[in-house]
């Protein structure tokens, strides 16, 4: 296992270098110049020249790339043009908020999806199954930004049960239990918005997989042994359905960053998704490139974890 892990991590290095080179070319190829954008409505040639020299943007592109590689290998990923701080500080500040949102959405949608899928499979072709199927199809078809707006209008603005925006109350809240409840209240709608698509997918995959599995001989044997339906599903059937579920969860985990952009904008959630959006519009090259790097890294790690999870779930799978 250790040899496998080391090998996978080593394989990741050229991949990351390739990502750096590719994103470097892409961000510089896009129209729009960060120095001109910074100058805003009052810039002139003198200002542009000062800032270009400051950011090293007055050097030829290949030289800039080499300089960037060199610094990156020393762990220096540059300063954000807009925030004027090391980019890794900028990103590190926002990771907790996004992680909280994404992991909660992943956990809730996975567990709920498994449960609903099991319910639907056990009651296949009955009204509960149909209701669940329709709901999941509608859920998969709805765009996240529309769903988010509707949830806000109904539950926050309309009924007033939940806050409209943010991760915390701006007026401040007592630390401890009150703060925890405040956080949970703020999490509900964004998690619902972000997790709905995955909930729909996992429900359907679980349902369809379970329907197949539940017709197998060994399931009939388990029933014959006298096990309750719940135990049969939980202990015997579900495990065989988990592989595709794990695949979906792994791939969604890998797109941690970008998937949350719209949700974070609607709910004013202070995470990485919004940071990516802001960095793009201001052409903040160092920040953009660092974010692409972090995104690539999370995809690589997620794939690795998924592969390892396969071996835990299915003893027939060998890592090579």
């Amino acid at each position, binding site marked *: 296992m250790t040899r496998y892990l080391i090998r996978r991590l080593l394989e990741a290095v050229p991949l990351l270098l390739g990502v750096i080179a590719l994103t470097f070319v892409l961000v510089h190829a896009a129209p729009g110049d960060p120095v*001109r954008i910074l100058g*805003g409505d*009052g810039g002139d040639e003198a200002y542009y020249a000062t800032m270009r020299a400051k950011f090293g943007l007055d050097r030829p592109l290949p030289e800039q790339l080499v300089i960037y590689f060199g610094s990156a290998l020393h762990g220096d990923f540059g300063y954000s043009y807009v925030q*004027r701080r090391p980019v890794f500080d*900028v990103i590190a500040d926002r990771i907790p908020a996004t992680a909280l949102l994404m992991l909660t959405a992943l956990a809730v949608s996975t567990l709920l999806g498994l449960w609903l899928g099991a319910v639907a499979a056990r009651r296949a072709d009955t009204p509960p199954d149909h209701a669940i199927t329709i709901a999941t199809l509608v859920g998969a078809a709805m765009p996240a930004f529309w769903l988010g707006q509707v949830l806000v209008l109904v539950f926050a603005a309309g009924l007033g049960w939940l806050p409209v925006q943010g991760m915390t109350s701006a007026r401040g809240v007592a630390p401890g239990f009150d703060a925890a409840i405040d956080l949970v209240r703020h999490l509900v709608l964004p998690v619902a918005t972000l997790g709905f698509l995955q909930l729909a997918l996992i429900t359907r995959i679980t349902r369809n997989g379970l329907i197949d599995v539940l017709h197998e001989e060994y399931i009939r044997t388990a029933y014959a042994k006298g096990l309750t339906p719940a135990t049969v599903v939980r202990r015997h059937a579900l495990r065989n359905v988990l592989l595709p579920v794990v695949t979906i969860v792994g791939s969604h985990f890998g797109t941690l960053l970008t998937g949350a952009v719209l949700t974070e904008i609607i709910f004013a959630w202070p995470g990485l998704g*919004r940071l990516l959006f802001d960095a793009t519009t201001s052409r903040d090259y160092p920040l953009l490139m660092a974010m692409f790097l972090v995104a690539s890294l999370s995809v690589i790690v997620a794939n690795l974890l998924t592969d390892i999870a396969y071996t835990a779930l299915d003893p027939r799978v060998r890592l090579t």
Partner: protein
Amino acid sequence: MLRRILVFGTALAVVFGACTAPATTSRSNSAATATATPKRGGTLVVAASVDPGQLNPAITTAGGTHFVADNLYNGLVFLDKDLNPKPDLADSWTISSDSKTYTFKLHPGVKWHDGVAFTSADVKFTFEQVLLKYHSRTKSGLESVLAGIDTPDDNTVVFRFKTPYGPLLQRVDVVEAPIVAKHIYEGQDPTKADANLKPVGTGPFKLAEYVKGDTIRMVRNPDYFKKGLPYLDELVFKVIPQAATQILALERGEVDFVSGIPGPDFSRLQQNSAMTIARSGAGSGGSFCNTTLIYNLSRPPLDKVEVRQALAYAIDRQQILDQVYFGQGKVGTSAINSSLGWAYNPNVAKYPLDPVKANALLDSAGLTRGGNGIRFKLEFVHATSFAKVGELMKQNLAPLGIDLTLTPLEVNAANDRTFVAKNFDIGSASYCNGPDPEIGVRRVYVSSNIGPILFSNGAGYKNARVDTLFDQAAAAADKAERAKAYFEIQDIVNRDIPDWNLVETEGYRVWSAKYHDPYYWSGNLAEAVWRD
């Protein structure tokens, strides 16, 4: 601009948005009461559309940073609602008769948030080492005309100019020239200093906490040099990117103050007696802004003045104001925004909606219709926030035989094509005049400002008389003389029409009626705010 993109996207996405009629009445219900006595205490929560990123307003012109950070600092003067200079860090000032020397007497006993005394050395340092290097508007405006800054004593600052300079007082408020501390920034790169996240200012509030991307919490400065101010205990900025979400948060009491009301929400808020609404063309993100069309004068047939005049007669500016801006603003009439009353020429050539006249002008220019009725094609390159403007224009111009192609682009790509690559027929921009025409109007029309610079003379207009008049206006000693020059400039430009101001945009601010006296047109928003 970015906010408009998100607002329109949201408006489309919300299924049950009632179609409200565009607001034709404005409620200039700016907070009451010279009669009520301000009470102490309370917290004001303000919605901010953009995370400031860092809290040093002297190294940037970004509206998002200034909206938040200006509350921690002061300028030499404070501009009142009509943008007249009043004392801030400077108690008084004198201008030499030749307008080449400005002497400011600073308020004694001002302290920085860390207790160190504020002196004239801070002013000199801020201008020389910070503003003139990194604040793009101050740099481009003052660097070439400023001869030097002297500090004869701790409470006096003298600005010396190479040529007579009229508009200095409009450029030294907290938005254009916030004063930062020499003892904090000396010897460091001001763009990278740690102090940018732990600001030390002179302002009415001190920073308590900055949760990145989320909240900026400030507390009252008990040693503020304006006795009795501020009234509030706390000022909190909450970062909420979407305008529609800001309004919902305001209505639910999660925030108390919002700058910018999306059109569809306007009438609902007007009818809400728990809200106060005020309207103004000024603000810390840019004052007296006009939505302007830029004509590429090097591209035929836009090089013919008859064509540009025909477009002026054909494009329905009132319709654009009503349908795109929901009545928030005024129809554009001249190169200078009408809010700059002293410089605005009301008697320039008028172009009332008249498609018949427009057609006649095009005929007289020899631009005949082809077999399909089309005289010529034009491409309108614009940021997506101007998309609706483009659609209305297309409808206006079709009967004239002008086929307008719409090219909406991401805002930076649009600016790049217009100002840098100069690959456009008609472009668009929101040109903010600023508190003085020297700040925001000159750069649009002078021939020396033609180049790959954003928001410059994108049309490529070259008129020697206009160039001379702008120089005269900047150098003139008194306002009447300056106005005379600006009046003539507007006469010329309204006949030549290198650019065309469609709408003078105004922003609405809305806040909970429990709060009073926000200075919403300036950087020091909450200096005098009090709550019931």
